[in-house]
């Protein structure tokens, strides 16, 4: 009977293979009295030197195979072994207590591990694992026990371990290691990050995989779902083998599209952009073929800290994104705080209806010092790339005019004090309030672009809080009411020669994409992983064909009718 174990999805993909149980080497530390401190210290130094040589070699190999960021993990490990607080304390302990090097090192390392484990921050707690990893390597040399040598593997396996240290993971030979499963760890632990960059399917945090599986048992790792199947049936193996082949085919197919422009079957170009939350997301956006950033949420700069970010900090972050994107467009949304997003250092009154309350541009126009700081940072960063500034939650024309006037004031103030600012940037608004969607023709005369934020637009149009499960059925992206608003916005924009984008989840939804194409949407912004599938889908769709369906769709009575129509009439050919 097969057994299913659920863990945390660490790295996507499917692996089928025999379990290789990675037992920790026996590292029983005994405290032994010594007679010759000098020779014991010498023994310690020799073990330290061998461990350092190992790490240098690993860092070098990782540098060429995986890049600098991963290699830096091992360079940091080297610094731990060079840390005078560690090395000198161990030597002092050997001399003063006349105790063996193993026991001295173990005690000193344990004190540091304890220190980091107590810290109230995940990042720091994970550093305890780093210290454990490096000291183990030295201890293994002192004890003369064999450290796991993944290079010794000669057949395809799935590694099963309590935990994989960064050095274990880095040494995994991709030729033989098809996947790995661990008892502990989370999505952000080093082993998970490494697995993703090595593209090895992995499930972590299963709690009990090491006790549930025996060596050489056949197992399946499903990194898409975070599921492990031990001793699978023939049907299960056949099912996952098919999925594996589909994955490979799809990936190869999609990878071809990374550097392509997004062109429909009838040769119209639309832009596929990425939604990002921080400068760190840019790499993923580009790797997935983003033609721009359609929404950079700036809230991350304000979260998880004790005070507002300075103009300089913001400038650095915006510049980083703009520079990395080159001449590709980057839409940066000004601060959207309030609603369900609060800052510990900003006093906000308790509200009956926070989503209808004091948030985003409403708050920024009231607390102008916050807004002006952000605008100055944006204006200065604008010279480094193709910047587009977007104001969120605009309901009335006066709000847009006021926001734009403040932007102009800050621009002139900067220029007057001799600061170079870009004057080629566009200024647009996010359409997420039905009032703005209805008045799009009026806005279109004054803005440079629209980007439709469907998550909020749908919730405001249907008057349904999508976080509330009891009314979640009203969150209907395909409802003709929503689609008619979209048509109004897109037509109004085009009439004034302005481009219209969308940065809500709907933009990457395969059922919505054909409709949006037919409506004439110019830019689709979505999470990076949706870009290549959307590019593929769009290459199979003809915009002229989709335009012909629009009148039919907008005359439908319900969301269900629209969905059924798209699925049966448009998507029937595997689109």
């Amino acid at each position, binding site marked *: 009977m097969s057994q299913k174990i659920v863990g945390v999805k660490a790295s996507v993909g499917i692996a089928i293979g025999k379990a290789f149980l990675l037992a920790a080497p026996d590292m029983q530390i005994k405290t032994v009295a010594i007679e010759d401190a000098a020779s014991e210290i010498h023994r310690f130094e020799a073990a330290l030197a061998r461990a350092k040589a190992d790490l240098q070699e690993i860092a070098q190999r990782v540098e060429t195979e995986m890049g600098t960021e991963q290699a830096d993990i091992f360079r940091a490990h080297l610094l731990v072994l060079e840390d005078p607080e560690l090395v000198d304390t161990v030597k002092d302990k050997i001399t003063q207590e006349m105790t063996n090097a193993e026991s001295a090192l173990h005690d000193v390392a344990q004190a540091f591990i304890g220190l980091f484990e107590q810290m109230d921050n995940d990042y720091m707690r994970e550093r305890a694992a780093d210290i454990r990893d490096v000291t183990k390597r030295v201890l293994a040399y002192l004890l003369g026990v064999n450290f796991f040598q993944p290079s010794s593997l000669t057949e395809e396996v799935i590694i099963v371990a309590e935990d994989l240290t960064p050095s274990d993971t880095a040494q995994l030979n991709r030729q033989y290691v098809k996947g790995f499963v661990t008892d502990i760890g989370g999505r952000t632990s080093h082993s998970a990050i490494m697995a993703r960059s090595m593209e090895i399917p992995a499930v972590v945090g299963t709690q009990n995989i090491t006790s549930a599986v025996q060596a050489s048992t056949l197992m399946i790792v499903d990194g898409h779902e975070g599921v492990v199947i031990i001793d699978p049936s023939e049907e299960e193996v056949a099912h996952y083998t098919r999925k594996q082949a589909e994955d490979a085919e799809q990936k190869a197919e999609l990878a071809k599209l990374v550097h392509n422009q997004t062109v429909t079957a009838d040769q119209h170009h639309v832009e596929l952009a990425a939604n990002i939350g921080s400068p760190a997301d840019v790499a993923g956006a580009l790797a997935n073929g983003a033609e721009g950033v359609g929404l950079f949420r700036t809230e991350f700069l304000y979260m998880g800290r004790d005070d507002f970010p300075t103009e300089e*900090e913001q400038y650095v972050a915006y510049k980083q994104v703009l520079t990395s994107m080159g001449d590709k467009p980057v839409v940066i949304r000004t601060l959207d705080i309030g609603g369900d997003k609060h800052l510990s250092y900003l006093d906000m009154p308790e509200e009956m209806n926070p989503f209808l309350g004091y948030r985003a541009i409403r708050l920024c126009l009231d607390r102008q010092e916050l807004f002006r700081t952000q605008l100055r940072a944006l204006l200065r960063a604008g010279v480094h790339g193709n910047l587009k500034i977007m104001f969120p939650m605009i309901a009335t024309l006066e709000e847009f005019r006021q926001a734009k006037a403040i932007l102009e004031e800050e621009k002139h103030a900067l220029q007057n004090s001799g600061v170079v600012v870009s004057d080629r940037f566009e200024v647009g608004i996010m359409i997420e309030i039905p009032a703005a969607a209805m008045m799009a023709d009026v806005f279109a005369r004054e803005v440079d672009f629209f980007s439709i934020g469907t998550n909020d637009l749908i919730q405001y149009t249907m008057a349904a809080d999508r976080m509330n499960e009891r009314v979640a059925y009203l969150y209907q992206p395909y409802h003709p009411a929503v689609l008619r608003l979209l048509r109004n916005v897109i037509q109004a924009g085009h009439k004034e020669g302005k481009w219209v984008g969308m940065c809500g989840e709907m933009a990457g939804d395969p059922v919505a994409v054909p409709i949006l194409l037919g409506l004439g949407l110019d830019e689709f912004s979505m999470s990076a992983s949706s870009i290549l599938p959307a590019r593929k889908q769009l290459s199979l769709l003809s915009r002229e064909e989709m335009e012909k369906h629009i009148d039919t769709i907008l005359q439908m009575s319900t969301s269900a009718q629209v969905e059924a129509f798209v699925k049966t009439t448009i998507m029937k050919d595997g689109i």
Partner: protein
Amino acid sequence: MVEKKIVVQLAHGLHARPAANFVKTATTFSSEIKIVKNEKTVNGKSIMGIMASAIAKGEEITLIADGVDENEAIAALEAVLTSQE
């Protein structure tokens, strides 16, 4: 011995990479290097000591160097702590 009060400007404080940079710079000098934060002193050449003291942006610390190259050490380390990136 040279002492200098410094307000840390590093965007993410003295974590990870900046901490490594600090230690690498500190070890190029023969002087003893210390960081004092809230009356607690850590060895400026100890990566673990520095990371464990979790020095954040905007915090004021006292940097101490003691040795033949103490002046150069203070100047170089101040530059690390006050760099913006």
